Structure formats: C-alpha cells, structure tokens
C-alpha cells in the first residue's frame, strides 16, 4: 500500500503523468461500471421502430457510435471491451511481474547453477515466436480469456526476469549488502529485506510495459480470430469488422476500438515514463 501511494505521488508530479493517470483511472472506472451503463448488451441486436435490423447505421443519438453489420451497438461493445482489456492487462502484468521478479531475484542473487538453468529457460522462451505460440496454445486448448491470460503470462515473464536479474547482480555487489551480511543477515534477509525494495522502481517500469504489451497482444489475438468467443474485446470488434468485409465502409466501427487501445496504452507508457523520470535522478544521485 505504501509503495502504491508513493507511486501515485511520484507520477503525479509531472503533467504528462497526471493526464495519463487520469486517463488510466477513467478506463479503470469504465471497466468496472461500463457494462452497467452500456445501453445494450454486447451481442444484443438492435432493430428500428419498424422492426428492421439496424445494419451498419452511422452514428446517431440512439447509437452514438453506430451499429455493426450484425446490428449491434458499437458503443456498448466498446464499454464491455474496456473490462476485457483491463482485466487481461492487469492480471497478465501482475502475473508477469510476480513470476519475473522472483525468478530474477533468485537467479541474480544465487548465480551459479540455478542462474544457468533459469537463464536457459528464458532463452528458450525468447526463441519462441511470441504471438504464434500463444495462438497455438489457444487453438490446442481452450479459447477463453483465462487461457489467454495464462498463455501471455507464461511467455512474458522472461523479460522481467532478465532485467531484474541484471539489476540484482549489480545490487548484490553493493556495499550495503556486504554490510548486512556482516551483521549476520541470512540469504533470505538480504534478498527480500535489502535487495528487493531496491528493485521496486524497476518492477513498476516492468509492470507498465507488461500492461501495455498484454493489452496490445490481447487485441491482436482477438483480431486474428483466436479470442474468447464469449467475450467482447476491442480486438475482436476490429476482427468482426475486418471479417465482415465492411470495415472500409463503416469507419465508425473500426476507428473507436483502435483509438481506445492507443489512448489506454499510451497513457500506460507515459505513467511508466513519468515515474521513471522522477525516480531516475535519485537513482543517479546515489550512485
């Protein structure tokens, strides 16, 4: 909690950070209440007064972002999609960082054989074609949102682990670690009480990257048609538009989900950068 508050505090200091936090906060709120305020269900078909299906109608008061070829309300789909994006992004980022952080800490601190094995594992994961691999996993198992989250986490922790490992290897040589050891600290003491707190800035940057990546990747999966068929995501909206061959006739259908992804991910990147810019001078001052 303390870490979270300092994080907000630090990021709030720059204009870019403040705007980005607001955008991110807004998306978060929409993710929670979006489905409640959405005028229509995600796959509800809309008809006009005459009972005719509203196919590809341009934006109107009734349907501010128009309708799809199946007569679905784009705005409602967008609101449902916000929940998917946030859920996938946050859970994947969390999983990635928790796994990557611990692997990185242990590999970097103990070195030797443990490190060699862990690094071999990340090597293998680095050699995997990222997106195709996830698609195959989804094709072979079950195309649902939890599998997507698990599959992405399974591949993405490698980068965090590598970055954290490198940082731990340099922190391990710092004098305060030697000082702790001479006062009788055990390996666990040093790893989790002395080194881990110093990794936090890096972890925050890692989280933002993982978050951004997860959101984009989930959209790509949706776009390639391997998303959860029961869940609307911004990627799957674009996929529907693309698959229906109607996308070039109905920009109101294609543009909003893309912009939503772009704005959300940009805000995530800028939050990370704002945090880093404040933290970094202090890091430099110390060394």
């Amino acid at each position, binding site marked *: 909690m303390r870490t979270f508050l300092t994080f907000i505090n630090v990021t709030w200091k720059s204009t870019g950070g403040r705007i980005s936090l607001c955008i991110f906060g807004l998306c978060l709120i929409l993710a929670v209440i979006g489905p409640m305020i959405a005028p229509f269900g995600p796959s509800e078909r809309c008809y006009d007064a005459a009972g005719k299906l509203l196919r590809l109608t341009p934006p109107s008061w009734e349907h501010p972002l128009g309708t799809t070829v199946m007569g679905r309300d784009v705005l409602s789909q967008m609101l449902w999609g916000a929940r998917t994006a946030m859920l996938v992004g946050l859970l994947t980022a969390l999983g990635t960082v928790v796994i990557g952080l611990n692997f990185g800490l242990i590999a970097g601190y103990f070195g030797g054989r443990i490190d060699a094995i862990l690094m071999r594992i990340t090597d293998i994961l680095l050699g995997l074609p990222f*997106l*195709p691999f996830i698609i195959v996993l989804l094709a072979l198992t079950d195309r649902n949102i939890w599998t997507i989250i698990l599959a992405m986490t399974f591949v993405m922790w490698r980068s965090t682990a590598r970055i954290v490992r490198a940082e731990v290897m340099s922190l391990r040589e710092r004098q305060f670690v030697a000082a702790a050891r001479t006062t009788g600290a055990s390996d666990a003491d040093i790893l989790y009480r002395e080194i881990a707190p110093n990794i936090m800035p890096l972890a925050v940057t890692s989280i933002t990257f993982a978050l951004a990546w997860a959101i984009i990747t989930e959209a790509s999966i949706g776009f390639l048609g391997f998303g959860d068929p029961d869940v609307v995501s911004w990627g799957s909206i*674009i996929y529907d538009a*693309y698959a229906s061959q109607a996308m070039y006739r109905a920009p109101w259908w*294609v543009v909003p*989900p893309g912009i939503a*992804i772009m704005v959300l991910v940009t805000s995530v990147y800028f939050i990370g950068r704002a945090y880093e810019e404040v933290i970094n001078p202090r890091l430099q001052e110390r060394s």
Partner: protein
Amino acid sequence: MSSFWVRRLWQSALTLLIMLTLMFFMFRMLPGDPTATVISPALYPKAQETLRIQFGLDKPLWEQYLVYVKNLAVFDFGLSFHTGRPVADEISGRLLNTILLVFPSMIAAYALGALVGAIVGWRRGSKLEAILVFLSTALQSAPVFWLSMLAILFFSIRLDLFPIGHIVSPGMFPEENWRMYLSMDFLHHLALPFLVNTLYQFCFPFLLMRSSILATVGEDYIELAKMKGLTDRRVLYHHAMRNSLLPLATTLPMTLGWAVAGSVVIETVFSWPGLGLLMVEAVGRSDYPVVQAAFLLIAVLTVVGTLIADLLYTLLDPRIVNA
C-alpha cells in the same frame, strides 16, 4: 576458436534441441487432438489405419520423436496435413516473402530511428523532441493491424495509390517464380505494408536511441571531446552516437527473428502470403507439421540472431575480449 564461443555454440544447440523437443510433445500432448482433422473419426477404421501409417502416427510417441529428429537433420519436416506436400516446400517460398517484407523495413526503421533519435536527444528540450516522443509513443501503442487498416482505408481506398493487399496482382504471375520479385507490380504491392511496418518499427529504436544519447551527454568523454575543440557535429556523430549505437546495433539481429514472428498480424491484414499468414492458416487448419516447422525456423532465426548479436558485440566493442 576460443572456449567462450565453444560454450556459446553448445548452449545455443542445447536451447534449440530443448525447444524442438518441447514443441514436439506440446503439439501431441495438449488436449485438442490435431490429428483429428486429418484422420476424421468419420472414416472407416481401415482408412484411418492407413492414414496413421502414412503419417507415422501408429508408432509409439518416443519413436515418432526419434524419427522426427532424424528427419530434421536432413531438413525433412514431414508432410503437411492439409496439402499432403512436404512441409519444407510449403514453407520456403513463404519465408522468402516474409523476409522480403520484414528485413528491409526493420533495417530502414532502425537506421532512421537511430539517426532521428540521436539528433533529437542531442538537442534535448526542443519542441520537435516533445512532439516526436509523443507521436512515436502513441504509434507504438496502437495495434499494428489497426494502423494497417487505416492505411489501406486512406491510401488504397480513398486515394487509390496502392493495391489493397496480396503480393502481386492476381493472375500476373501464375507460376510464382523469381521473376515475380523483380516486377514493378511486386514493389507496388510491397510499398504500403513496408511503409506501415517501417513506421511502426521506427518507434522502438527512436526512443531507445534518444534516451541513450541523453545518458551519454553527461559522460566525461563527451565533455572532453567538446573541450578538445571538436565541432558539435563531430562530438555527436563520432562520440555520442557511436557509443550509443553499440547496444542498438547488436540487438538488431536478435530482433529480426522476433519480427518474423510478429509479421503475423501485418501479413494477415495485407493478405501477404508470408510465414506469418501461413502460421495463422495452419493453426486454423490444425496442420501442426507446418506450424511446428515454422516455429522451429523462427527459433533458429532467433538463436542464430542472438549468436550474431554476441559476435557483433565482440567485434564492435574493443573492451570485450573473449580470450
């Protein structure tokens, strides 16, 4: 050859072996049964049996594995479930198409990104810097398939400057031979996906180079270079940029492997008959010998890329001596 490189080669070979083993078993152990598509349960048991033998699926798993590895040694990736043709034939042309699309645009993006990033970082605090940083971050945040669609919408449909997709106009080169790649028609088709991909890939090297130049500006040797009376340009190009280029240049070969994997999306939008599109199609058809071969190819590319990166590093950075 020094022991460092011996060990390094060893490691790479081991990584590849583990990967191909994992992939082999992954495709056969996971719940969905890919063989179901080829050997439809609707067929007569006798016919099923024949097909099993034809694809070598009748033998125990470990034996299949040994055969697979043995065949790999002579670049035999088996037969495609979908077409029944050798996978190697299916893939080779597709790989070339992907490479023709991805490599030139990656190299262009890196060259441009590094140059612009360096100049912008050197003159830090300018308006241009702020705008470029914002734009490239936003660009990086947009899904590339969406950008491609917008590009098609605008350049191909509105302005009618480029074809909507495919590698050549239908019917122009029915036999798909090497002449195809030398035609203007091919370049015309290549232009838009190339531009979109270059623009998208530009962001990473640009942002990296900028921050790395910002970090070098405070270095003592940059200050000394200025004090030596060198012109500002010379300090930038011969000191700041040269040193910051090192990490970027060495990551490029590694990134190429990933870029091939990442081409899935852009190839889908532009119907570009490359490896990425093939993979998506093959996954959709459960044609796992093809997918497996494509994966292996990308893995080899990445591992070799990493090796080249290491090699480049030792060549470019005199400090690293693997004696």
